[in-house]
Each structure stands twice: as C-alpha cells, then as structure tokens.
C-alpha cells in the first residue's frame, strides 16, 4: 500500500508539474524596433550604463556607409537579466534609435543625424557630429556569410 502511495504521489507530482509548465504563458517583450529590411552590422555593449546597441544598415550602408543612399540606425536597448539563463544579459526595453542618413535632404546636406528617444525621459542628446562620426566608424562584426 505504501509503495502504491509513493508511486501515486510521484505520478501526480509529475503530471501537475508538466501541466503547470505548459500552461504558463511567458510575457514576451514585443519587438519595438522595425528593421525595415536593414541588416545588423555590429553590436556594442556599454557595461557602465547597462545598455546594448545594434547597428543596422541598409544595403548601401553595408557596402559604403558614406555613399548617398546609405542609412545607418544605432538601436540602443537597456540590458536586463535573461529570465531563462542566469549568466546572460539580454536586450530589454528600447531606449533610443539614432539615425545617420546620407540622403541629401531639403533641410541640409548629409549626413543628417537624428535621435528618437523612448522610455528614457532624462536622456540628453550628445553632439550630432560626434555621434555621426562614432556611428560611421564602427567596425563590422565578422559574419561567415557576408555579403549575402
């Protein structure tokens, strides 16, 4: 009888544990940035400010980021704990998108720098020229299939 009880408890516990795991719906963070078909050129981690940024570029920017059709976007996220792996940080809340656009515009000659800020009311924009230079001189991460 005791043996039966032991196994009954084990089976019940297993079934309950399995059901609990399956029913829990994780709160997946919505994707706040639309890449509009651009590709990631590199990734930068700012440990001091707990931020991670991904530099996206269109096809022209990947070839040569100073040519007229080139468009770069540096997308910065707050880093957060990876809920499913202690030992890893993952991109969290979107903080800002900095754009360097080499298309000549009515308001001025390229490069045109702009920044869209999200979830970061205290953010103060840095010098546009310095940021443009920083973004344009970032090295490409090595991918085994580029250009693809």
């Amino acid at each position, binding site marked *: 009888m005791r043996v039966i009880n032991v196994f009954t408890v084990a089976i019940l516990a297993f079934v309950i544990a399995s059901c609990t795991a399956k029913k829990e719906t994780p709160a997946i963070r919505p994707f706040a940035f639309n890449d509009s078909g651009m590709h990631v050129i590199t*990734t930068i981690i700012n440990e001091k400010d707990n931020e*991670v940024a*991904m530099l996206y570029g269109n096809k022209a920017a990947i070839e040569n980021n100073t040519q007229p059709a080139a468009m770069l976007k540096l997308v910065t996220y707050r880093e957060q*704990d990876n809920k499913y792996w*202690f030992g890893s940080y993952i991109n969290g809340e979107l903080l800002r998108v900095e754009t360097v656009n080499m298309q000549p515009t009515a308001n001025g000659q390229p490069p045109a720098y702009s920044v869209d800020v999200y979830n970061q009311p205290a953010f103060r924009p840095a010098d546009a020229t310095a940021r443009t230079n920083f973004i344009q*001189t970032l090295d*490409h991460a*090595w991918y*085994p*299939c580029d250009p693809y």
Partner: protein
Amino acid sequence: MKISNRLKIISVSAGIVLAVTAALSFTTKLVDNPPVTGDLEAPAAVKEIFSRACYPCHSNTANLKWFDKLPGVASIVRNDILTARKHLNFSEWDKLAPAAREAALWEAYNMINSGTMPLPSYAAVHSDASVSAAELTTLRNYLLTKKKTVTAVKQDSIAQPAATLPNPLPTSLTGIQFMPEFRQWEVMSTTSRFDNTTMRVMYANPIAMKAIREKQIHPWPDGAVIAKVVWDKERGNDGYIYPGNFQNVQFMVRNAERYKSTDGWGYAKFETKTLKPTTTLLVAQSCATCHKAAAKTGGIFDLSTLN
C-alpha cells in the same frame, strides 16, 4: 468450504507473488558506486546543496532508498543514475577541464532554478532533494564570484578578410545544412554572457518570428528556425565591448516528428571561420537536455521578457 478455498487461492497467489518478487529482487541489478576520483571543490554551504539535491544521481555516491531497490523500479533508477552520471558526475570532477567545470555549475544552477532538476518525479518521493529560494540565492552568489570580465583588447580597425562560404555548404550529422539566408531574417535578440566571455545575436526565420509575435510557441510550429551567431567579446579603448573573434553559428530547427528524441528541435553548430559542423547525435541529446531548462518558452532561452 467456500471460504477455505478462497483462502487457499489467496495464500497460493500471495506465495507466488512473494516468490517472484524475491526472485526478481535477487536478480535485479542495482546501480553500483564506482570510486570517487575527484570531488567538487566549493564552499561548504554550496557543496551541501549540490550533495543533497544532485549527488544521489550525479555522483558515484548513490544511496538508494528501499523503494529504489524494488523490482521494476531498480532498473529505472539504475538507468536514470547512469544517464545522469554521463551528463554530469561530481565524483569525477577532476576529469573535467576548468572551463567545463564552471560551465557545469552554471548549467546545474539553471536546471535547478527552472524546476527541471531534480526531476519532479524524483523530488516527489525524495523530499530532501528540493532546493529552497534561500539556497538558490546561495548558489547564485557563489556563481557571481565566477563572473567573467572581458580582458581581450580590441585592435584598432583592422579590415577583416571577407567571408567565403564553403561550397557545398556544410551539413551537420543531425542533417541540418548551414543556412546563410539567416542574414535576411529578423533579429530575435542579443545576449551578453557573463558565465563566459561571448556575445551573441539571435535571428528568427519568418515562421519563428510569426510564432513569437502571435505567442504560439507551445509548441513552436514545424519549420521554425532560430540562428545564433557567437563572437568572443573584446574591449575597445573607449570602454565599450565589441564582437571580436568569430566563434560559431548555431541553428535550432523545429520538426516535432523528425527530432522527437530531442524534444522536437534539431541542433547544429558550425564552428570557426571554416564552418566545421560539430554536432553529433550525442551532442544534440546534450543540447536538448540543457534546453529543457527553457521549457516555459518551448525550449528557446533567448527571448526577451517583460520582467
């Protein structure tokens, strides 16, 4: 007379059952305990937790309870322990390279924290195996003493040679061919590991991305593919961390039927710039075991959540 016959039948049946049980008890092979060649070295409080929760299966010091020795149960227990030892054996700690020891500890923590280990069926009948929230904190604090910092220095803008894809494209022993088209897929996430010194970018193919957006990941649809690109971290003169040496690209391919033995996911890893396929069927099993810790997201670790 009728009662007497019934008693006879019951007595004979009980006798047969007892005899068969006794015979099986003598013939059932219990798991043995090979010598301890080198034990885990860790602070006493940490070791006590691992000893209690993990050692019964993940060491050569199995201490079977009476019900673990019952006929039928003993062979299951034996199989479980032998499988567990193959994956991680604290009694043969000396056989692991230093980096592998640390990786095993981070993995052990994540398996416990996710409720994957100790196995719920085991914990149900071994009440002393459960790990409390306070004990998890003790383990976390211990692991944080092993947190890695980046020492590799980024060189000044050296143009790296362009990639040349192997022709034909390499195929893993798990039947997965390298998919250069992942560069066209959307980015799922990016991670920075501090249990080692790598950084990663994860891509999801259109089927996987649709599943994420629609929260249809229990289970993930067949055809979903996740790609992961891994680099060593390097620190620039400006203090930022950049992707340095390319390590590998990994794929997880969803096909519930084909990859049934690895929880519906096929695994493949292509290492170094030559994209050498290194995933054997045995390695894929090991991948699947670890990915059980991400059961809440259908086996995928790197999904950002609203914390």
